């Protein structure tokens, strides 16, 4: 099995729809950058963070966790069997984090000062740590992706027209990288795993400082642990989800051998997460808040139910062996973690003075959907250009 560029046309009807969604999002983005956050969002002084932080940033980081979980599995624990998933997961993480960084740029008021945390440090701030880790990790991800670029373009750099003169030097750079990278790559890979553990958990620490403004169902000192565990738990389901969609969309056979063994690892991780999540609820005596059955309680129940159902599904061998069931179970985990991030950042945030409930505006939703559409479009372009996806019956391209 070898990774190779997917041979497919880029434009399909589905792609056209994605382009329209992306353009719609970009239009609202333009308004945000011209007239300020108030013009597009429903944010105000009582609700300073909304959909963009909750979904684009927090959920985005969680759903890109496939990158570090697969790196840990294949490179750190040296499980060759799973080799084929590394590149797609790496690509998702790379694009995912790029969009997280972009979303941060969109959300912070003074986007032109985005570099400030590099030189202005506040070690007490969880946000500072998240910011720094994400910046470094993004760089690490790009470095990890370099071998793919090298594989595709070494000896083949062929720029058109005037850029021709760059062919030689570029090829030289790729060759130098090719000599140096393999020896040092393991440093970046481990570093990437460490950075991920750090910021995935710190993302949970973020809301701890909101103190009593956070609903007691979610406010707990072990938020960082819960965030880390759920990120690890969603890593493999996300890889399975993407892989199945990709094989559908590119009309290939799903890699069931790999996906099934990946799937069989999900249940134990979910069990650990659930144990901490539910245990914490009882230790803090917060179960009473579930019994009031208000909006927050129902959101909490929904979040938990998704994960529990997914857990039960993953327990059975039948799920793991059938592409459809595997897809459904993985989707449930993803939905559960997504909802958890939305709950933590939006639903749970309930300050003392809160005259009206925050509901994201059409503009905010458009930007979020537009970003996701753009991400899928770039993903598609990259796998058509670069050798990312492994297919069983495809000959090596040479």
């Amino acid at each position, binding site marked *: 099995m*070898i990774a190779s560029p997917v041979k497919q046309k880029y434009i399909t009807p589905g792609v056209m729809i994605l382009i329209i969604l992306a353009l719609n999002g970009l239009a609202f983005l333009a308004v945000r950058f011209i007239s300020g956050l108030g013009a597009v969002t429903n944010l105000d002084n009582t609700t300073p963070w909304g959909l963009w932080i909750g979904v684009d940033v927090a959920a985005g980081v969680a759903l890109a966790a496939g990158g570090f979980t697969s790196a840990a599995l294949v*490179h750190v624990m*040296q499980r060759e069997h799973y080799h084929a998933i590394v590149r797609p997961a790496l690509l998702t993480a790379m694009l995912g984090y790029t969009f997280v960084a972009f979303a941060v740029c969109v959300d912070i*008021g003074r986007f032109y000062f985005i570099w*400030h945390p590099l030189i202005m440090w506040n*070690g*007490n*701030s969880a946000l500072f740590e998240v910011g720094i880790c994400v910046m470094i990790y993004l760089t690490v991800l790009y470095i990890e992706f370099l071998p793919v670029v090298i594989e595709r373009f070494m000896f083949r750099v062929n720029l058109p027209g005037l850029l021709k003169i760059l062919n030689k030097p570029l090829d030289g750079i790729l060759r130098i990288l090719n000599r140096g990278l393999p020896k040092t*790559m393991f440093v970046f890979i481990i570093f990437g795993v460490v950075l991920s553990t750090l910021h995935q958990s710190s993302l949970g620490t973020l809301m701890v400082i909101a103190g009593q403004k956070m609903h007691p169902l979610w406010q707990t*000192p072990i938020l960082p642990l819960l965030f880390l565990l759920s990120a690890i738990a969603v890593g493999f389901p996300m890889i399975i989800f993407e892989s199945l969609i990709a094989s559908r969309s590119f009309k290939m056979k799903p890699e069931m051998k790999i996906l099934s063994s990946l799937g069989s690892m999900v249940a134990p991780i979910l069990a650990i997460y659930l144990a901490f999540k539910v245990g914490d609820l009882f230790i803090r005596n917060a179960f009473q808040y579930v019994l009031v059955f208000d909006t927050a309680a129902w959101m909490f129940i929904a979040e938990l139910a998704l994960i529990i159902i997914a857990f039960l599904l993953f327990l059975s061998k039948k799920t793991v062996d059938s592409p459809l069931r595997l897809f459904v179970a993985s989707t449930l985990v993803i939905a559960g973690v997504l909802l958890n991030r939305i709950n933590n950042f939006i639903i749970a945030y309930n300050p003392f003075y809160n005259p009206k409930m925050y509901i994201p505006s059409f503009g905010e939703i458009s930007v979020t959907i537009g970003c996701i559409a753009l991400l899928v479009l770039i993903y598609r372009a990259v796998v058509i250009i670069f050798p990312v996806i492994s297919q069983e019956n495809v000959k090596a391209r040479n």
Partner: protein
Amino acid sequence: MKNLNRRDFFKTTAFGVALATLGAKSAKASDKMLSEDRIGVLVDTAVCVGCRHCEWACKVAHNIPTTDLDTYSDNTVFKEYRRPEQTALTVVNEFENEKNSLLPIQVKTQCMHCERPACVSACIVGALTKEEDGSIIWNDDKCIGCRYCMVACQFQIPTYDYDRSIDPHIRKCDFCHDRRKEGQLPACVNICPNEALLFGKRSEVLRVAKNRIKRKSDVYVNHIYGEQEVGGTSWIYIASKNFDKLKMPTLVKNPAPGISESIQHGIFAYFIPPVTLYALLRTIMWVSTRHKDKNSENLSDIHKDEKGEES
């Protein structure tokens, strides 16, 4: 992985230790000691008559456009509960007084200048700082507009300029930092015609507050708001009605940044946990690779991994 030998293993671990010592230096947080003489204001809501002169003076002192002082006697604004905003760093609200309906209770709201400010702890770039005198100041040159301070503040004080794309500000009461540098009183304290605002050392105004409650125990509820709330605040309040009825949040005594900072410092304690994790992963990788090497002739370095079984 060919290069995964014992020497490399120690090399990377040594790198980690170096990083740890480096971290130890930079992690020393500069927890500025608070002066014994740090300032405070006592807001006596039983004395305040709701003239809103403080609102006017605050605007003037901060170059915020305002109408004439006479217009502030208009009582209709009390119909709606108001919060500080970009154009008003302090506002006065009116509440019903069950004991004497002719004397409604007025409460002035502004930044509390916490003893353990969540906003300062949270700010990603350290744009909010606590001065030695206890006041909390925002730095225009640093702020990136992330609004995390607003998420963190338990009193919902910082406000953000949602209508501007370029140079939006975080605004909140700055304890009239500039005026005090010139030896003047905060503008609101200075103008207050009824001495409902008492400015002085925090310890001093606390003592006054206690005395007033003791002397007029029939008027005041026995609670100094801000003495202990989230670790204490520079602005403290006394009132003839429970504070939750005056729309002031009921808060715990623990400082809001307490838990989050200990988690933060726990994860990063001199970079030891991350470095340990690095070393651990490195060890697992080393062991796994050796294990695999024994089982197969096929050495697999990552480079080869990436290339697949191309041959």
